[in-house]
């Protein structure tokens, strides 16, 4: 069974772009498009569900779960749009580029398949975890440039907060991943999925400390309260996004939704054994998504330095323990 996956995931040597026929290319492009649309839809829907749930927790009625789609339509149909120069014009483009590119390198289902029914592969086999981590920063840096050019001080403050926060949550996250890498001698996501398939144990049980550290890092990654210092409603006037509206904000929103899906799928792939079907994927990702959301409901916002320091306490300790667990 495993050899099947290994075979599919190591086809790179036999199929190069040159000897692919036209049919394959069309299939790949279609599959890539479908994946993107799915990631976008799921991300938007999750956002809507969280808005509704949050409202109910706060004893409000709240918007319908499809409110995000309505918002997006409204943004796209705005008649006038303004930008502050080339970089701010391109800012949302960086986000969507990074989001879609990263998505192409994340296995959605087992065996590196984009979707069931499509007998083509993702580009997954060509990227590993280190690459994914760096690719994910590509969008935020591009966006930071766009936000910087607008000249709004709130944007710049938001960006500095976002970058500072990154120095916090990246460390436990990387500690968790490095622990798994040295435990199983691979850095590829496909490799992790195969190992979990073979051993029948999810990584979250095989190295629990690693999972705890990564889960704590995810709180910062999703930027829900108490780590909502970047957008910081009522404080920074939505931070980096403050000067963006209309089609720009719409594209940013789409990119953000895809990124939410990417992060969740990455966690599911690495820690929760991946998924064999779309419903399974949805259940697992939604369960994961609720962790930062639940934590956010009961926590007030941190100041930036408190947020960074938070990651250098328990998450760091769990990360180091994960590595020690992997060595011994």
């Amino acid at each position, binding site marked *: 069974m495993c050899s099947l996956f290994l075979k599919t995931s190591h086809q790179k040597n036999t199929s190069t772009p040159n000897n692919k026929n036209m049919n394959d290319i069309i299939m790949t492009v279609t599959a890539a498009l479908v994946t993107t649309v799915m990631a976008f839809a799921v991300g938007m829907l999750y956002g809507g569900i969280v808005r509704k749930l949050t409202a109910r927790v706060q004893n409000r009625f709240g918007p319908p779960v499809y409110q995000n789609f309505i918002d997006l339509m409204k943004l796209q149909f705005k008649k*006038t*749009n303004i930008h502050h120069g080339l970089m701010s014009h391109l800012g949302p*483009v960086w986000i969507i580029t990074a989001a879609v590119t990263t998505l192409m390198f994340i296995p959605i289902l087992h065996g590196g398949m984009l979707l069931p029914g499509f007998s083509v592969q993702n580009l997954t086999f060509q990227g590993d975890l*280190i690459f994914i981590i760096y690719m994910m920063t590509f969008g935020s840096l591009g966006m930071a440039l766009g936000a910087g050019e607008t000249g709004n001080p709130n944007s710049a403050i938001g960006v500095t907060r976002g970058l500072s926060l990154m120095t916090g949550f990246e460390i436990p996250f990387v500690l968790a991943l*490095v622990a798994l*890498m040295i435990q199983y001698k691979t850095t590829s996501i496909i490799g992790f999925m195969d190992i979990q398939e073979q051993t029948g144990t999810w990584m979250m049980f095989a190295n629990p400390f690693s999972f705890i550290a990564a889960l704590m890092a995810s709180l910062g990654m999703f930027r829900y309260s108490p780590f909502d210092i970047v957008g910081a409603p009522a404080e920074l006037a939505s931070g980096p996004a403050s000067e963006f509206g209309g*089609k720009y904000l719409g594209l940013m929103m789409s990119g953000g939704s895809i990124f939410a899906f990417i992060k969740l799928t990455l966690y599911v792939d690495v820690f929760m054994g991946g998924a064999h079907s779309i419903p399974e994927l949805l259940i697992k990702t939604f369960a994961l998504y609720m962790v930062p959301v639940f934590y956010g409901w009961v926590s007030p916002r941190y100041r930036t330095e408190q947020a960074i320091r938070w990651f250098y306490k328990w998450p760091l300790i769990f990360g180091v323990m994960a*590595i020690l667990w992997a060595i011994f």
Partner: protein
Amino acid sequence: MNVIVLILIILFGGSALSFFAKKITPQASSVLNFVAILSATVLFYTSGKPDAVNFSLGGFNLEWQLNDFGYIFASIVLVLATLISLYSIDYMKGMPHLGYFNSNFMLAVASMMGIVMSNDFISLFIFWEIMTWSSYLLVIYKGRHETSKIGIKYMIFSAIGAYAMLTAIVLINSRVGTTNISDAIELGALGSKNILIPILLLIGFSVKAATMPLHVWAPGAYSESPMSFTALFSGALSKMGVFGIAIVFSALMMDIQFAISAIILQQVIMWLGGITAVVATFYALIQDDAKKLLAYSSIAQLGYITIGLASGTKLGVMAGLFMAVMHAGIKAVLFMAVGAVERQVGTTDMTKISGLIKKMPYTFYATLVAIIALAGVPPVGGFVGKWMLYETLITSNSYFLVIVIFLSSTAAFLYSYRILFGLFLGQEEENVKDVTEAPITMVAPMVIISTSLIVVGSFPGLIFEPLAKGMAYLGYTDVNWNMSMLQNVWGDQVDLIGVSTTIATVFILAVIFITLKGYKGTRQVSTQDISTSGEIPWDHENMNYQQDFFKPFERAFSGMYKGNMEKFWVEIGGAISSIANFVRKIYTGNGQTYAIYVVSFLALLLLILNK
């Protein structure tokens, strides 16, 4: 005539000529500088592999030859020097002492070429000293009071390095009886048995590479020299340290009598590199002066390179050398860009300037690409080196070091953004209203290097090829490399062509979408036209966010900013001077005391001999 001799004659002779050429016009000296370096470069690439030059000096056999390993660094030096000297023509226009500047500039280039072509320690040392002196003379070029202080700091540390190196050379000669580099390595002079020799050599080389704790001179020296020299200083001259460290470590790792002492030394150097990377990055991101920021970032980057070279694995050494080549290009561009800003605006203080993107678009483009490469974000060249370094450390049991490196690289995003935002983005200040783009001779070198950084991001094989040859010379044979595929020892891969085509496709589609959608309803507004959340600013009230840019980060890591290496060296200086004070007391000036010394020494000698 032999090509090596010819190149050295062109460069050394050019140095002398450009000093006198300023008598014609100062500008002539700069142009001559460029022409001489260009002709040496052309000669270097058009002539085939040169023959060795052998001659004898004071009883030592000196040998100059260009090997595959030296070729990497010779290329860095010549390509950078050519482009920088072109840039320098306009950058230095109107500045005083042009003859002095140009002749020392070329002397530095010539001595670096000498270093990479030396096959024996004696000529290496001679060229090394010429390099130190010429760079020292350029560090103190501005002649201000603070400048001379910085110059002295640089000179003292260079002297420490030089003494260490000289001692090592003497030891090598006494242990194995030769000063030829490859012979000495073959005889095990740099091996674990003679662990003192590699340590001393590493001290000597680390001073130029500015590794902790020998980095103290670098921030000042990098930011006080004229930017056209700093580009060479940080780009090429610091790579001479890398050149030496690579030789020492490969000799240490290839040694048959491999011992525990070598492993300890390796671990110490790797951790020093890691600490250098983190601490320098943390200091870089609180700087307000763009030059200082780049200087600290330079130190941090050399920390990564040191780790790669010291790791001793094929992938690690490849990563170190690759990053050395990348860093040469990146820092050359960045220092040139900051120099261009300095020339056009008059300051590099990021709290005083902002919003240059529309005034200096080409400089911005070059800086942007170099910064992306520096941050290591794909698909630009810097990512390749970072990836290889991480994979090396993960696959060779350096788990905690990889976390240290990750912290440093993540914090590097902060200063990367700081310099782009500080100089080019944000609201336009009054004082940049009439700024124009730098002249084409200054912009062209930056744009050329930046564009090549993008190309290397997709085709790193272009650089892997000479690196693999050079590593074969060092003893790392059968190095695997692909034109555009990265691979670690566990078999995990990154296909760079796949990455860059995906990025390019999505990017182009998204650009078309966002530009064409509602094209007529889209307009550009000025940076003054922003949402101010209900506040109405005064006419001249600028709301630029530049002061205390990363204050929250600084607060979060306040513990890291308490220590100071400078204080450590001041303490050491104090200790040395009190020891010297004590030693001075031996020389009382009283003849009777001296007589007692002589008698007691003789008595001691008799006791030992009688035994």
